[in-house]
């Protein structure tokens, strides 16, 4: 499994990539493996406000449906429409073509509350131990 150093992560297994105040959101390599084959992604509406740690999207796999939480608060700027016809991109390229949405961060202080790749990997090790 692979966790790019330049990204930040959440306890709920989303990743966030920062470019100024613009944040791109997806789910981690660990998450996509756990939920297995993704069959559908319900993306947020562009322009909608999202809140940190509140559901922003839904991903449905052959196993079940899961909420995807916003890593930070802000407004949705764009969504990955490629997922509508090809949801398997989430499994094939979780940090690239399998991104979910892009948002504008309203409170940059929230960024610092996110986990680094190192912290996230530690968390995963603890979780898998239990």
């Amino acid at each position, binding site marked *: 499994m692979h966790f790019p150093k330049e990204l930040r992560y959440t306890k709920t297994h989303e990743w966030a990539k920062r470019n100024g105040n613009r944040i791109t959101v997806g789910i981690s390599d660990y998450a996509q493996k756990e939920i297995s084959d993704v069959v*559908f992604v319900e993306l947020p*509406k562009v322009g909608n406000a999202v809140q940190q740690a509140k559901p922003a999207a839904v991903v449905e796999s052959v196993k079940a*449906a899961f*909420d995807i939480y916003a890593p930070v608060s802000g407004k949705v700027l764009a969504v990955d429409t490629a997922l509508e016809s090809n949801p398997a991109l989430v499994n094939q390229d979780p940090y690239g073509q399998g991104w979910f949405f892009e948002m504008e961060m309203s409170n940059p202080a929230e960024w610092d509350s996110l986990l680094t790749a190192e912290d996230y990997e530690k968390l995963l090790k603890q979780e898998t131990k239990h």
Partner: protein
Amino acid sequence: MHYHPLTSQDKQEMLKEIGVSSFEDLLKGIPKKLLNPAMNIPEALSELEVQKLFLELGSKNASTRSALSFLGGGSYEHFIPAAVFQIIGRQEFYTAYTPYQPEASQGTLQAIYEYQSLITELTGLDVTNASHYDGSTSMAEAALLALRHTERNKVLIARSVHPHYREVLKTYLDGTPYTVEEFGFEPGGAFNRSEFIEKLNPDVAGVIFQTPNFFGVIEDLEGISDKLHAAGALLILSVNPVSLGVLRSPGEWGADIAVGEGQPLGIPMEFGGPYLGLFSTTRALMRRIPGRLAGLTRDMEGQRAFCLTLQAREQHIRREKAASNICTNQALCALAACAYLTLLGKTGIRELGELNLDRAAYLRAQIAELEGFHVSLDVPIFNEFMVKSEKPFSQIEKKLLAEKIFAGIPLTKFYPELKNEFLVCATETKTREDIDRFVEALARC
């Protein structure tokens, strides 16, 4: 092995735990005179006596078998081939429930899949679920779908939609942040277009029309779907499935959701139930469809197989986020509809529609000739229509009932402004002689 849900020892332990010495102590708060009151019930009867008693009681009801009925208003008398009852009575099929275990229920699942395919073809949409309780609950679920999908908070509904359906919708939305607003109808019974346009605003999630509507009028929905889609709202149509052999389908009207009462499809009137809620929608809204859905797939050996599908929408997986928390359906009634439609076939459903058009048109033309009764001849109808009487309708109803004729449904209890107006229906079950007998009886009123 004996099965004891609660042994006397269990009871003693529980009583001790809460500090009470006996079960009777728990009832102390109830006044003595209310405890174990003497019940005034008659002596027990033998099975033979019970059968006689109930036959006697039952014979006091006048059913459509013993009377000539012109009642419609959401529940219709149609001819049902005996094969329908034969098929649904088979023990392999005789359940109201949708099975979860595909390995044990291929037959039932296939029947549901075929029912879905038939309704999808009738409505001209993309996908149909395994059914709801009845037409009113289907319609309420459609409203909820529109509200969630658009993230708006208001539903607009025509007053020409069945009054009971509008009541059910209000019940479903009671206690939610969602509201319902109604728009009226023209004197002939068709919806009021200018009032509808006036009330359409960016808060509106969806608009509900019924066609043929409660007054029997076929609504002109030209341009409605374009207008709604431009406003970001969904078009929900409640339809009579039997009319779809001759009338434009919801798909052709550009509807996003089609709902309707499936009772006309091989289900007896039976004093109001059990009935069948039809629900079809587009591919775009497929993931939001409430209730069960049977799908076609292949098993491990590559053979054709049926199973429930898209279950991630459902309450046993998504709990509070489920598309609906009522997944119970009417599998047996859906099977009756499936058998009925299959027996009718493509030409049969069209012929049935033509017969209904013909009988109702004949009856309307005959009543138009009568003194003291008024009908609008210029509104398009399917199998029922409104009649205005100069005399109080209650008198007419009583007189005809004495001749074992059910004259129609009085409209004043639903629409106080429609005094002495009543709804009359004639399906394929009414012969020309039946209609002439009815008209002749009306003429004597």
